């Protein structure tokens, strides 16, 4: 396709170029987003535990309860460990909300979470200064606590510049180094034994379980139950079977186990993360279908445009085709020449599409904390092959029209 024809048919050339560009850009972005999403999800899953199940208490109104169950308790967790010793972890957690906290002259409010030492083995993204809880802390109801320090807002996320999450202890950290000091939670004094620094928001590898709330203080579960909650209730139990394949089986077993212990009252929910993940992946695939549909439509539109421009080119170059044939060009020579020329236009559109796709994909993460995109050389290669393919397929018909021209008639054509 001569430069002359591209100029002579500016609109048509531009539209076909544009169609290819949009098509290729959406193909590339689809792949980039999907690869990034599944990478994040897999990393998050690895961090959470491959066979993760969560048993949480159901937030139902007291009226609808039969009142025969005590709800989730520490005893449930202990018994579960005994009945199913093959589970990799059983981590109970308890929470209480908006407790008053006083450190020297600073007052704040925070949720308090009671955790066990094993909590360090799942979803652990922190940089810990000091130490975490031990079995001894648990056994002797030690009044010790670990403060969580919020991660910096991400550089990439443009929204965070306008809306920053506040760390309730911001002033505290600005003024003091609290490690080793005492802090008052409600009516009790606790010793701060560790400070867990969260990673910057845009580097936080957690896919599930990111604490967006103001969960700033951890204490040993036993201490929590004795001094803060005054009961042995817990809010959730995290379980890891160690294998995503076995989660469905254990989901069933856990349900029967807890129903039995709660005297038939289903006052708990069980979340199966590998099932959740496959559900999400299904949605992601639907999303991909939409993108690919856009891609296919614009590639076809671009292809038809290329066919159009190529046909116009053939008509404007009949004489040239006659000359080439007269000096020995075969049909195949002419066919190849026109297909190649059209493919150049298509590939040019494709390359711009690749650039656009990469640009777009790099812009997207700036709308969320951690939304990774992966552009592999393979996907770029795929896009270039697609644009080559589209250029070739849609120029074969015009090129064939050129190739089969009769040399004498073509030479006579003015």
């Amino acid at each position, binding site marked *: 396709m001569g430069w*002359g024809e591209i100029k002579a048919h500016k609109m048509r050339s531009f539209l076909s170029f544009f169609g290819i560009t949009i098509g290729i850009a959406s193909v590339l972005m689809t792949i980039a987003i999907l690869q990034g999403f599944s990478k994040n999800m897999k990393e998050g899953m690895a961090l959470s535990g491959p066979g993760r199940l969560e048993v949480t208490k159901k937030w139902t109104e007291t009226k609808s309860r039969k009142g025969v169950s005590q709800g989730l308790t520490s005893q449930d967790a202990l018994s579960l460990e005994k009945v199913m010793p093959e589970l990799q972890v059983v981590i109970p957690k308890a929470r209480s909300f908006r407790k008053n906290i006083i450190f020297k002259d600073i007052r704040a409010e925070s949720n308090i979470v009671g955790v066990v030492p094993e909590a360090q083995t799942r979803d652990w993204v922190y940089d810990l200064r000091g130490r975490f809880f031990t079995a001894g802390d648990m056994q002797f109801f030690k009044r010790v606590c670990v403060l969580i320090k919020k991660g910096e807002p991400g550089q990439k996320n443009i929204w965070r510049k306008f809306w920053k999450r506040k760390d309730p202890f911001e002033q505290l950290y600005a003024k003091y180094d609290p490690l080793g000091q005492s802090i008052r939670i409600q009516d009790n004094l606790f010793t701060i034994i560790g400070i867990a620094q969260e990673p910057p928001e845009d580097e936080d590898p957690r896919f599930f379980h990111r604490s967006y709330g103001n969960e700033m203080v951890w204490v040993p579960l036993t201490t929590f139950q004795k001094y803060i909650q005054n009961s042995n209730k817990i809010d959730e139990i995290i379980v890891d079977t160690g294998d995503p394949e076995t989660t469905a089986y254990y989901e069933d077993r856990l349900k029967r186990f807890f129903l039995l212990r709660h005297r038939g009252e289903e006052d708990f929910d069980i979340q199966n993360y590998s099932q959740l993940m496959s559900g999400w992946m299904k949605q992601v695939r639907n999303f991909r279908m939409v993108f690919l549909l856009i891609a296919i439509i614009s590639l076809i539109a671009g292809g038809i445009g290329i066919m159009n421009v190529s046909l116009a080119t053939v008509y404007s170059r009949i*004489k*040239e085709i*006659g*000359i*080439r*044939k*007269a*000096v*020995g*060009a*075969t*049909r*195949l*020579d002419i066919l190849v020449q026109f297909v190649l020329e059209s493919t150049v236009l298509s590939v040019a559109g494709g390359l711009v599409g690749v650039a656009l796709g990469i640009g777009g994909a790099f812009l997207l993460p700036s709308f969320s904390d951690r939304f990774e995109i992966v552009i592999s050389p393979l996907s770029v290669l795929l896009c270039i092959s697609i644009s080559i393919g589209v250029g070739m397929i849609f120029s074969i018909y015009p090129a064939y029209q050129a190739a089969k021209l*009769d*040399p*004498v008639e073509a*030479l006579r054509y003015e």
Partner: protein
Amino acid sequence: MILCKNLTKIYRDGGSGSEYVALDDVSFSIEKGGFVAVVGPSGCGKSTLLHILGCLDRPTQGSYQLSGQEVSHLSEKDLAQVRGRKIGFVFQAFHLLPRSSALHNVALPMIYSNVLKSQRIQKAQILLQEVGLEGKMKNTPLQLSGGERQRVAIARALANDPEVLLADEPTGNLDSKTGQEILSLFQKLSQTGKTILLVTHDREIAKAAGGLIQMKDGKIV
């Protein structure tokens, strides 16, 4: 070199179904190295004959042997190759690529006979020198006079060292002086052993040529 037997070309009008006999049972032969002029009134079938001899067209009937090879039954592809390698064609209207340089125009046939690029350029330069255009190789046809354009076309016809040169009124678009120069170029080429068939209205040239084919109404008379 060229042996034609009972060549007939009939044009059929697809719409009305009417037929026109442009060549009517033409037989003749030309020796290797022969220089033959084809003369006759306009519309008598000279171009039709040359197109068939140049493998640009096929006869409706009859046989055409080029250096012993029957070409009227060849496939499209083989015909294109014979056209490119064994025959050099010079047209009245030059038929050069308007946007390409003289050099590229002369090199064009060698693209299709698979000559390497460096050799193509080298050969084209030599040919352009031979036709006296060493100073104008980079010019496009629009930057050349009619006589110079026809020299480029002749150089192009010689690109693949064809045995046969076919020229259809090569001086038809030129004034008599430049026409004369072009014709003497053909005479010079004839002396190098090329077999030449030339359509002309010029009585002098017709006389100077070794042979004469006089045509009327699609027949040799």
